[in-house]
């Protein structure tokens, strides 16, 4: 029964027992000491006992390894005095503190030659009147690992901050790039109305000079006392009937052209505004869809028929111009998926607390192995120079920012459906 108790008893107690007990007790104590020694010998932590003169009374094998490690050049000499192991191993301050408080622990760093060093965790304890126990654990690896971790962590933090900055830049430049891509189309779209308005103005100028000469002819004829037949012949000569008939037509067509230019410019402004946090507003999703469709109509009309099925939608709390960007990316993809002629459907509805925007196309579709990657940044199947592969990645980011979801489903050869769901109100 005694073994278990003795194991818990301090060495001091064991030796006290040895002093006061008769022979049988002494034998038991010896056995106890042997057991304890075997135990301490087996501990992988350097453990030693030394006295006030730093004379080593006991050192377990791990401590002897440490001694050689501390002083490789003294390997052939007896290391009876712990102070000889290494000048920095046991400093007098630590010993003093230990004598005063009964124990001391701390880290010491030892130079071990060739620019190498060891980091040791020391624990000193006073175990008798002039006896000290010391355990030493080599934590060089741990603390190297730790400081490496710290360094890595710091690096990661820097990298993360950089990435965040980069992402913002990429988003901004992607927006600019897609605007650039649109610019050529928009120029065409604006040049058409400007073209006919401009030409109509030249025509109007000719008409007006014809009218002026008509007035002059009438005046001359009137002064000469002319009658209805002469007036009629002037009319016919200057083709005034045609002119009078064409002017209202010309004016209304020109007005139409000016309205178109205004609309394009307004849509562009809506589209290109840079968003700020206070720009979260309750907005009409249909308006966003319409103005985006207007902008890219020029890209789409040559290939696609647009079928809009708009439900009743409440105003949605959102960043409208960012959502427009999502719609644009998805619609452009739909258009690009259609080779010759096809149909793009835009369907909106309410689903519980969310609104749903479905954008479908009957284009080439997405093969199953590609499907999981379409939201990856820089993933594109389009030829170099025509797709950056950011359209859906950025759309995903924007929709997530709105606490919404964007999902894709597709049947190769038949078409693709992008489903965007957005909460009507943002969570507080």
């Amino acid at each position: 029964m005694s073994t278990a108790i003795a194991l818990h008893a301090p060495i001091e107690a064991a030796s006290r027992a040895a002093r006061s007990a008769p022979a049988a007790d002494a034998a038991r104590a010896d056995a106890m000491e042997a057991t304890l020694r075997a135990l301490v010998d087996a501990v992988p932590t350097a453990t030693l006992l030394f006295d006030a003169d730093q004379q080593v009374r006991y050192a377990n094998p791990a401590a002897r390894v440490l001694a050689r490690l501390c002083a490789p050049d003294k390997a052939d000499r007896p290391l009876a005095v712990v102070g000889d192991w290494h000048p920095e191993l046991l400093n007098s301050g630590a010993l003093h503190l230990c004598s005063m408080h009964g124990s001391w622990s701390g880290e010491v760093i030892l130079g071990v030659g060739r620019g190498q060093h060891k980091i040791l965790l020391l624990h000193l304890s006073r175990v008798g009147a002039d006896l000290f126990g010391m355990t030493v654990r080599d934590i060089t690896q741990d603390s190297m690992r730790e400081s490496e971790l710290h360094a890595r962590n710091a690096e990661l933090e820097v990298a993360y901050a950089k990435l965040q900055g980069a992402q913002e830049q990429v988003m901004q430049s992607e927006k600019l790039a897609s605007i650039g891509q649109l610019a050529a189309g928009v120029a065409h779209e604006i040049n058409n109305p400007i073209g006919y308005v401009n030409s109509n103005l030249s025509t109007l100028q000719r008409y007006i000079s014809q009218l002026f000469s008509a007035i002059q002819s009438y005046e001359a004829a009137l002064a000469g006392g002319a009658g209805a037949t002469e007036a009629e012949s002037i009319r016919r000569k200057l083709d005034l009937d045609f002119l009078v008939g064409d002017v209202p037509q010309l004016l209304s067509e020109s007005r139409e052209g000016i309205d178109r230019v205004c609309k394009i410019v307004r849509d562009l402004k809506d589209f290109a505004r840079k968003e700020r946090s206070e720009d979260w507003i309750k907005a009409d999703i249909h308006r966003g869809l319409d103005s985006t469709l207007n902008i890219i109509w020029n890209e789409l009309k040559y290939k696609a028929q647009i079928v809009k099925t708009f439900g009743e939608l409440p105003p949605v709390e959102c960043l409208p111009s960012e959502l427009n960007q999502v719609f644009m990316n998805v619609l452009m993809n739909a258009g690009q998926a259609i080779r010759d002629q096809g149909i793009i459907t835009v369907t909106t509805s309410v689903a519980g607390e969310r609104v749903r925007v479905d954008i479908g196309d009957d284009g080439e579709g997405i093969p199953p192995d590609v499907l999981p990657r379409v939201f990856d940044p820089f993933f594109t199947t389009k030829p170099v120079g025509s797709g950056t592969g950011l359209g859906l990645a950025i759309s995903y980011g924007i929709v997530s920012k709105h606490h919404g979801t964007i999902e894709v489903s597709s049947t190769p050869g038949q078409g693709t459906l992008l489903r965007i769901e957005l909460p009507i109100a943002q969570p507080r």
Partner: protein
Amino acid sequence: MYRILLVDDEPNILSALRRCLASIDVGELDGEALKVEAFTSPEQALERSEEQDFDLVVSDYRMPGMDGVEFLSAMMELQPAVPRMICSGYADRDAIIAAVNEVQLARFIGKPWVDEELAAAVVALLRPGSARARAPKALRAQAASARITRVEQDDDGAIVLRSDDPA
């Protein structure tokens, strides 16, 4: 009488072009009248061209379904001799240059255009006074191809059409 075929998907452009062409004085065309036929659909214009010869074709570049170059190459098959002209606001220079060379354009006119310039180009291409209208088709084909232009970009990036025959 000179027959001109206009193709543009935008009806208001067609109206404006008609007005512009109507301003050409018949005196400049040796007293011949101009007859303009306009289509918003290139396909319909081609259908019409199967039964009617024209003296000049003016087409937009970007149109739904069939673009101007496709339309003009189909037109080239039907009526090889007819001078071809593109009037477009398309801002992509490379596409225009490719187009001009591909369908051997006689002229490229940008939108917005200047009425006087467009009218002058039309008059020049109809070549009144050269008795062209009375010449057999084969000769006209030659005449037309002799005018084939080359396209280059000048230092400002502007598109320059060069006529091969000495001006």
